[in-house]
C-alpha cells in the first residue's frame, strides 16, 4: 500500500505552495503568540470595557463548527445510520482540530497561561465557564481517542503492531465514545450560550434562549462545515471523499435545522423586544439599525442563515454541488458572524441606563494586528494539519489505492 507520490506536476506545485503558505501563517501565529506571552495582553486592543473580542469569537466559532463531530457521530453510532460513516469520520477529524484550535486560543487569551490547568483543579461548579472548560478538555480527549485509530491506519504504524492493536480496541468502543461525545457536547455547546445567557448585567445576553440558540446553530453549521470540507477535498482530488448522496442527505438535515434555528431566532427576537426593555432595546437597535446593522442583516441573517437554509434544502432536491457548496459555506460564515455580533454588541452596550454609572461612551473595539495574527496563525495551523491528515492518512484515501 504505497502512497502515491507522483502527482501531476502543477498539482504537486500547488499542493506544496499551499502547505508552505499554511506553514508560514502558523509560524506567524506562533511568533506573535510568543510576543503576546512576553509583553502581556497590553499589545491587544482588548480593554476593561471590552475584555473579550476576536479570540473569543474564534473559540466560540471553532467549537460550534466542530459540532458536526458529535452530531454526525451520534447519527452513525446511536441512530444507526451507517452510511454517514465517511462524513462522521471527516467531521471527527476536523472537530478534534477545531477543539485544539479553541484550546490554543484560550491559552493565549487568558492573562495567566501558566495557570491553564486551574479550572481542572479548582472547581467553581456554579460557573458556566468552569463547566465549559471541563467539557472542552474531556471532549477533546474523546475526539483524540476517536481520531487515534484513524492515524494508526498510516503505514508508519506497520512497524508498531501493538499501537495498532490498541487503536483497534479503542475503535471497538466507538459507540461508547459517540455517546460520551454527545453528552459532553449537549452540555457545553449550550452552556457556551449560557456563559452569555446568565450575565444579568447585560440584558441583550440575559435570555434563557441563549443556550438553545447556541446549540441549534452549532447542529446546523457544524455539519455544514463538514459538507464544505468534503466538497473541497473531493474536487481537489477528483474523487469524492464522502459519497455525494450522503452529503445531500446531510444538507437536508442541516437545512432543516437551520430553518428551526431561524424560527427560534425570530420568536426570540419578537418576544424579547416587545415594547421597551431597558438596555436590551438599545443593544438590539445597534444590531438592527445602528453601527452593526449592515453586517448583522447581510452576513448573519440574510447571507448567513436565510439563504443557506434555502440553498441547502434546494441542493438536497436538485442534487447540484454548486448550491450545496454555496449554502454550506454561507452557513459557516453566518455562524461566525453570529458569534462575533453576539459578543461585541453585548460588550459595547452600557451597563445601566444612567450615563453616570457607567463608562461615558459606548466603547468600540477593533482587533489589533496581534489578535489577527494569532487568530490567522491558529486557523492556518489547523488547516495545515487537516490538509496533511486528509492527504496522507489511508482512512481518508479508501479503496481505489489498494484495490
Amino acid at each position: 500500500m504505497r502512497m502515491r507520490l507522483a502527482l501531476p506536476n502543477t498539482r504537486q506545485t500547488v499542493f506544496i505552495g499551499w502547505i508552505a503558505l499554511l506553514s508560514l501563517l502558523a509560524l506567524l501565529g506562533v511568533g506573535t503568540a510568543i510576543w503576546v506571552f512576553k509583553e502581556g495582553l497590553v499589545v491587544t486592543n482588548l480593554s476593561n470595557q471590552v475584555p473579550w473580542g476576536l479570540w473569543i469569537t474564534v473559540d466560540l466559532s471553532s467549537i460550534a463548527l466542530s459540532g458536526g463531530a458529535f452530531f454526525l457521530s451520534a447519527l452513525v453510532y446511536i441512530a444507526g445510520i451507517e452510511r454517514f460513516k465517511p462524513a462522521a469520520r471527516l467531521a471527527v477529524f476536523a472537530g478534534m482540530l477545531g477543539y485544539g484550535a479553541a484550546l490554543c486560543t484560550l491559552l493565549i487569551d487568558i492573562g495567566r497561561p501558566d495557570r491553564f490547568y486551574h479550572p481542572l483543579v479548582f472547581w467553581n461548579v456554579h460557573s458556566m465557564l468552569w463547566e465549559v472548560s471541563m467539557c472542552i478538555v474531556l471532549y477533546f480527549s474523546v475526539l483524540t481517542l476517536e481520531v487515534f485509530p484513524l492515524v494508526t491506519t498510516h503505514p508508519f504504524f506497520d512497524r508498531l503492531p501493538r499501537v495498532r492493536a490498541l487503536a483497534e480496541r479503542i475503535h471497538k468502543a466507538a459507540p461508547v465514545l459517540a455517546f460520551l461525545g454527545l453528552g459532553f457536547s449537549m452540555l457545553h455547546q449550550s452552556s457556551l450560550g449560557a456563559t452569555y445567557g446568565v450575565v444579568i448585567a447585560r440584558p441583550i445576553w440575559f435570555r434563557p434562549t441563549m443556550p438553545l440558540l447556541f446549540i441549534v446553530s452549532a447542529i446546523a453549521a457544524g455539519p455544514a462545515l463538514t459538507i464544505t470540507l468534503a466538497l473541497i477535498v473531493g474536487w481537489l482530488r477528483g474523487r469524492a471523499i464522502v459519497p455525494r448522496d450522503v452529503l445531500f442527505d446531510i444538507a437536508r438535515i442541516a437545512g432543516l435545522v437551520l430553518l428551526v434555528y431561524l424560527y427560534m431566532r425570530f420568536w426570540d427576537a419578537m418576544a424579547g423586544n416587545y415594547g421597551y426593555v431597558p438596555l436590551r432595546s438599545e443593544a438590539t437597535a445597534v444590531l438592527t439599525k445602528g453601527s452593526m446593522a449592515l453586517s448583522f442583516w447581510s452576513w448573519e441573517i440574510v447571507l448567513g442563515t436565510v439563504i443557506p437554509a434555502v440553498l441547502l434544502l434546494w441542493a438536497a432536491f436538485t442534487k447540484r454541488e454548486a448550491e450545496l457548496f454555496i449554502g454550506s459555506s454561507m452557513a459557516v460564515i453566518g455562524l461566525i458572524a453570529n458569534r462575533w455580533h453576539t459578543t461585541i454588541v453585548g460588550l459595547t452596550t452600557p451597563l445601566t441606563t444612567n450615563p453616570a454609572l457607567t463608562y461615558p461612551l459606548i466603547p468600540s473595539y477593533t482587533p489589533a494586528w496581534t489578535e489577527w495574527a494569532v487568530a490567522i496563525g491558529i486557523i492556518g495551523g489547523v488547516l495545515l494539519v487537516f490538509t496533511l491528515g486528509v492527504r496522507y492518512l489511508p482512512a481518508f484515501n479508501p479503496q481505489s489505492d489498494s484495490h
Partner: protein
Amino acid sequence: MTAKTTLLSRREFVKLATQVGVSAAVVGAFMQIRGALTKAKAGSHGPVSDAYHWVMVIDLGRCTGCNYCTYACKATNDTAPGITWNAVFNDRQSFAKEVYLARPCMHCEHAPCVEVCPVGATYHRADGLVAMDYDLCIGCRYCQIACPYGARYFNWEDNNQPNPMAPEWGKPEIERRPRGVVEKCTFCTHRIDAGLENGLRPGIDEDATPACVNICPVKARQFGDLNDPDSKVSKLLAERESIQLREDLGTHPRVYYMLPERGEDQTCA
C-alpha cells in the same frame, strides 16, 4: 468451568481492592492539596458568619467630587496607573443639581463575579465581603464581563513604575498584583482584619477603616457595622433616604447612597 465458581478469584479481588484503594488515595490527596491551596473556605453564597455586616454609606449631597478618595485608594492599595478601584463619576441627569458618584466595589451579597469565576478565585469571605485570590485567578476576565458596576480591572501589563500617588496620599499597604490577574476594591480588608485583631473598631478607628473613608474632607463616606445599631452607618441609614445601585438586579450591594436634598424634577438613579 467448574473451577471458577466465585465472581472474582482471590488474585483478582486483591488487584481490584488495590486499584480502588490507590484511586481513593489519589483523589483524597488531590482534594487535600486543593483545599490547602484555596482561600475560599466559605461557599459562594453570601456570608457564613453574621458577626459583622460591613457596609459603606456615601452621601451624594455632600460629595464635592474632589477625588481625594480615589487618590488615597490608589496610594494605599498601590494600583497600576490604568486601574481605579474607586472611580468618581459626574452625574448631571439624575438630580436637580449635579452630583458626584463614587463607585467602589459593591461587595454584593449575590455577587455575579463570584458566581461566574471558573476557578473560585473571587469568593465571599466569612464576613461576606467579596475578595480575590490572586494566586488562583487565570485572567479569563469573565468576572469583568459579569460585574454590573464595572468595578473590576484587569492587569493588562506589568506595573514597575513608582506609584505617583505615594507617599503624598498614603503609603502602599498591600502587595502589587501581578500582570494577568483581575483586581478590585477590597473595602481595605487588610485594615479591617488587622484592626479587629488589635481591638480597633472599623469605621471609628482610622487604622481599621478604608482609606477612602478616612481621607474624605467633607465626611461624605462612612464605613461600619450594620449589625451594631449604634454605628454611624446604622444611624444614617435609619434616618435618611438611601438607594443602592441597580437594586433591580437583586445583587444586594453593601454600598448605600444617601440622596441629596430633594429638588425639582428629581429622578431616581
